[in-house]
C-alpha cells in the first residue's frame, strides 16, 4: 500500500465517522418519536465499527457470510467481527481502513410515561418513548467529530508527504 492507498484508508475512516454522526443525528431528531412506520416507538440506533474495508470476501473469511446483509444483525454477530479486528497486529499487516459493520438497534425497553390523552397511549394510559439521553448522544457526536478531524489531519499529512516526495525529482 502506498500513500494513495493510505488516503483511501483515512477516507474510509472519515466516511465511517460521518455515518456515525448521521446515526446520532437521527437519534436526536427522533428522541420523542412514539410512532414509526411499523407502529412501534423509535428505538435508539448505534453503529459498530470494524477494521477492514467491509468486502464480502473479508466477511466470508471470518465466517460471517450473509450476516452483514441483514438489516439488524444480532449483537453477537457484531461482537464476533470486533474480536477479529483485535488479532490483526500479530500478522505484521493491518487490514486497510475501517467500516461500519452494522447499525444496531438498542434492545433496551422504551421509557413509559403516563399520558392517557396521547393518541398513542396503550390500554393503561402509558405512552412508550425511546430511551434516548441527549447528553449521551452529544458526547457521541463530539467523539465522531474529533475522530473525523483526526483522520482529516492524517489525509493532510499524507498529501504533504506526496508533495515532499515530488521535490526529490525537481
Amino acid at each position, binding site marked *: 500500500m502506498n500513500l494513495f492507498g493510505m488516503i483511501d*484508508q483515512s477516507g474510509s475512516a472519515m466516511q465511517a465517522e460521518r455515518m456515525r454522526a448521521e446515526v446520532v443525528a437521527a437519534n436526536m431528531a427522533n428522541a420523542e418519536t412514539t410512532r414509526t412506520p411499523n407502529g412501534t416507538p423509535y428505538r435508539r440506533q448505534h453503529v459498530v465499527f470494524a*477494521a477492514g474495508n467491509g468486502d464480502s470476501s473479508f466477511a466470508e473469511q471470518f465466517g460471517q457470510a450473509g450476516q452483514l446483509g441483514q438489516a439488524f444483525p444480532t449483537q453477537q454477530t457484531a461482537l464476533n467481527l470486533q474480536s477479529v*479486528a*483485535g488479532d490483526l497486529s500479530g500478522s505484521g499487516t493491518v487490514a486497510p481502513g475501517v467500516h461500519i459493520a452494522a447499525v444496531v438497534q438498542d434492545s433496551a425497553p422504551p421509557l413509559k410515561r403516563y399520558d392517557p390523552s396521547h393518541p398513542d397511549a396503550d390500554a393503561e394510559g402509558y405512552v412508550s418513548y425511546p430511551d434516548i439521553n441527549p447528553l449521551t448522544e452529544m458526547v457521541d457526536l463530539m467523539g465522531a467529530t474529533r475522530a473525523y478531524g483526526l*483522520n482529516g489531519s*492524517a489525509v493532510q*499529512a499524507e498529501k504533504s508527504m506526496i508533495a515532499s516526495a515530488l*521535490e526529490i525529482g525537481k
Partner: protein
Amino acid sequence: MEIATRLSNEIARYLDLNTREIQLTAANMANIDTPGYRAVGMDFEAEMRQAMAGVDGNDTLAAPQVFQVDGLIVRPDGNDVSMDRESLNLAQAQLKFKVGAALLKSQYSETMNAIHADAK
C-alpha cells in the same frame, strides 16, 4: 554501476521506513473507534539501524516488524489508541519524510554537479 552513494541509499531507506511509520499511524487513527482494536507500531530506530547495516546490496527492504504497542491505556470498549500519541507520530513522520526528501535531493544534485563540472 553505482550511480547513487551509500549515503543516498540509506536516506532512501529512511524514506521507506517513514512511509511505513505513517501507514501504521494512519491505520491506528482510522481505528480509533473500533472496539477491541490495539494500536500497532514499529521500532523505528532498530529498523533504521538494521537497514543501514544491510544497505550495500540492492535487495529490497524486508518488511519492518509490526507489533502491538505496550503501555497504552485500554478504554472500556477495548480500544487503546491514544489520539495524542498518534497525532504526534503523524507530525514527526511527516517532518522526517520532508527532511529525508530534502537531504536526498541535495545528494543527487551534488552528483549532478560533479557530472556537469566541466560544463562551460
